[in-house]
């Protein structure tokens, strides 16, 4: 998934003198106020940080409360989705007009109907609302599925992403991963499956015909296979 990065940062945290006895605790407290908010300087939403104190000496700021500044080196995990990035998220709501997704458990994303490609049609299958692909039978998006989508825009205040399922490499991640592994094999498999299905229905037809005509033993069913193969040979 794109959009996540680790940055190194040099920070200075100013601590109130009353906390001089518990410096680490107050540093962590101070840094925790950054979490899950978009920070312009880091250009991203701070998700996690790993802090090391650089120097045991700290400079005291003169003033009414002589706060002292502790220098730190931190590794920050940042989330900064930019347009045209691919993100993964879990579908939480599915409707005819829109799809709602949650990314990394905290960021909400919505995909409007016009941003879902033609391939996907809204259907109700087994009482459940889904977006089913018309060209690939197994490719289905429903509530709870993980999908990969393209970022259109990102609202930094509420951390809301507007997404799109137009590009071909977007959709249900499960299907996409499988699809990418097998490559062109898929087409062959698909047609073969289709054939087998047709065969089976033909076989059924044939056997019933025979039974109707003659109406007895299983042996007769065995024979049609042979003739079917022949028939196929004739057809192809």
């Amino acid at each position: 998934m794109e959009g996540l990065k680790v940055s190194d940062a040099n920070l200075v945290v100013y601590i109130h003198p009353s906390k001089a006895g518990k410096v680490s605790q107050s540093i962590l407290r101070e840094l925790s106020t950054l979490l899950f908010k978009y920070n312009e300087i880091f250009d991203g939403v701070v998700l996690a940080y790993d802090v090391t104190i650089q120097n045991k000496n700290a400079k005291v700021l003169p003033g009414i409360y002589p706060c002292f500044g502790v220098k730190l080196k931190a590794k920050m995990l940042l989330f900064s989705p930019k347009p045209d990035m691919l993100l993964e998220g879990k579908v939480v709501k599915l409707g005819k007009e829109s799809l709602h997704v949650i990314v990394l458990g905290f960021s909400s994303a919505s995909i409007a109907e016009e941003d879902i490609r033609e391939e996907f049609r809204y259907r109700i299958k087994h009482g459940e609302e889904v977006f089913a692909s018309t060209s690939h039978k197994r490719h289905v998006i429903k509530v709870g599925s993980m999908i990969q989508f393209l970022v259109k825009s990102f609202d930094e205040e509420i951390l809301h992403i507007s997404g799109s399922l137009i590009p071909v490499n977007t959709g249900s991640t499960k299907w996409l991963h499988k699809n990418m592994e097998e490559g062109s094999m898929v087409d062959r498999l698909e047609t073969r499956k289709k054939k087998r299905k047709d065969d089976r229905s033909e076989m059924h037809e044939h056997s019933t015909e025979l039974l109707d005509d003659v109406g007895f033993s299983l042996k007769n069913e065995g024979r049609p296979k042979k003739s079917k193969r022949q028939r196929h040979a004739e057809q192809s």
Partner: protein
Amino acid sequence: MGVELATERPGFYEMADIDVSDSELVYHVRDALKSVSQGDSDRYNQLIAVMHYTGRLAPDEVAMLVTSLKALSGSISYIDIIHHESLLSSIFGMSMWNYGPDVMDALVELIISLAASNGKFVDSCLDMLVRNFMPPKSYLDLLGHPRGLARKHEVLDRVHSALSHIADLVPLAPMRLTPIILQRMPHMFDKEALIVIYVESMLLLESSALGELVGSTMLMALVDRLIDLDVEISWDDIIHEDSGKGIFDMELEDVDDIIDHAEIDGFEHPRGTAGSQILGTNAVADKLDSLMVLICEHLKSCADGERLTKVFETLLQSFWVTVLNAYKSKFSQFVMFYACSLDPEHCGERFAVFLADIFVCRTHPALTRMSAVAYLASYLSRGKFLPLSLIASTLKRLVDWCLEYCHVQNGEEKTINLEAHRVFYSGCQAIMYVLCFRMRSMMDSHRLKSQLLHMPLEPIFCHQLDPLKVCLPSIVEEFLRQAKAAHLFTVSETFLFNNLLESDLSKAFGGMERLDMFFPFDPCLLKKCDRFIRPSFVYWSMVKTTYDDGEDCSSEEDINEYFDGNGKSYMESGITRSLDEHDLDLDEFEYQLNKMSITPRNSLKNGLIFKLENPFRMPARIRPSTSPESL
């Protein structure tokens, strides 16, 4: 374009046919929205007009409104925050209380979709839902009727489920919700019904799934509001009837001050007590009462749901930040009392330990420590649910602290600076107060009796700092009396109380705030929430003292009075009964003899003239002379 009569109203859907499908409606609405930016606002304005349907709606108007809302839900991505500002403000201005369930459902669906679709709408959607916690002002009276109540359930169910849906779709929504709720909280001076219904929703949120995230803020805001109301109740509003009813001696001190209140400006005086006193009709008190009832009920449900321990931590935090340092909170602290009574093992003990910790910790300001120990003393005395072992161990802590304090003093001072030792004096007074209530029970238990007898009380009370002279005389007297009866320690009979000087002395350590006379858990005067407190509360009249061998022996000079239900003093019977006892302790007998005599040997009020209607009843008005000549 008026929307007066259904027939005359220009229909938004010009066609009257019913066969219009949902998707066609959606396209219709989308066109209307799109055409605004192109300059054509006719259909858009018609749409807005539908949103403004008011009053009793005819069925076809309802249908129109529902279909419009549903069509809008389907056209969310076409709604632009700038071009469609008036439509949005109409939607957000709608009050669910005005409509039936169908419209409510459609409206809620729209709001949830709006919030999930675009980050810009989240705040307005949450704001709209929070505003729906309360009905329109005109509706308030209807709330008492069954129809109004049914509507209330319909609305609040939907509002709260909408909030939880939005939180599911937009995980950061609760973060935005908290400031909105706090901002929209009705003002202290708003109508009681409005405040109550809003607080109900706040408490509902606390116990809901969102409670994990917003619950503690809700509770703390509520306690803040309790204190705001509490502070508004002035002591003047507290009407006292007969000061003689079931008081503990020290309360009489309070009565004096109350009577003089006219002369003392801006001076908080402690109230007299006993459940018979009535808080005069006071709107603020009623509001406080209702809110406390709500919170107590909520705490009960938390206890039933086994969440109390967690909620209690928030309450404790809130207590520390808000209540402890509020200037003599009157009733708000009873919320803590009730919470402790629901779970004496954990919460009850936690509260006592918490207060004791504050008292012994040197880094807290003196006033905080004095306030904490006043709370502790009153709590340990009044909590019926508290195990004696806890009381004993906490007492031991206080005693140990006081003893160490005594050791640290160099003892060279000629004149004692009372203010400098005020924390010590408040600690001593606390010990005495608790023992007044609990000495008898402790003496009745073998283990605790030996513990008590081993407590180094004598070195503390006979120290040069002289707490017995400085602390509130009524408490000291009661304590000494009981201590003597229990043979706790030997005290010489040199404590003739010259009450006036002592008042000044205790005032000196109590300071301007009169923390020497602060008994926070004295009987709660609020009518409605009293029923939560009463079962776990120890009234002074219920207390058995060490000198009380099953009878009440009080003299006319003794302010320790016990009245039965008819308001008649038992004193008469008490005295006659005591005369019949043959196996009285000699000391006890002598003591009673002294009390029965009229000569003011143990008189607390030197130089007072009693105006006695009933010779055994304490007069309601006692005005100690403040001039030194009366000594």
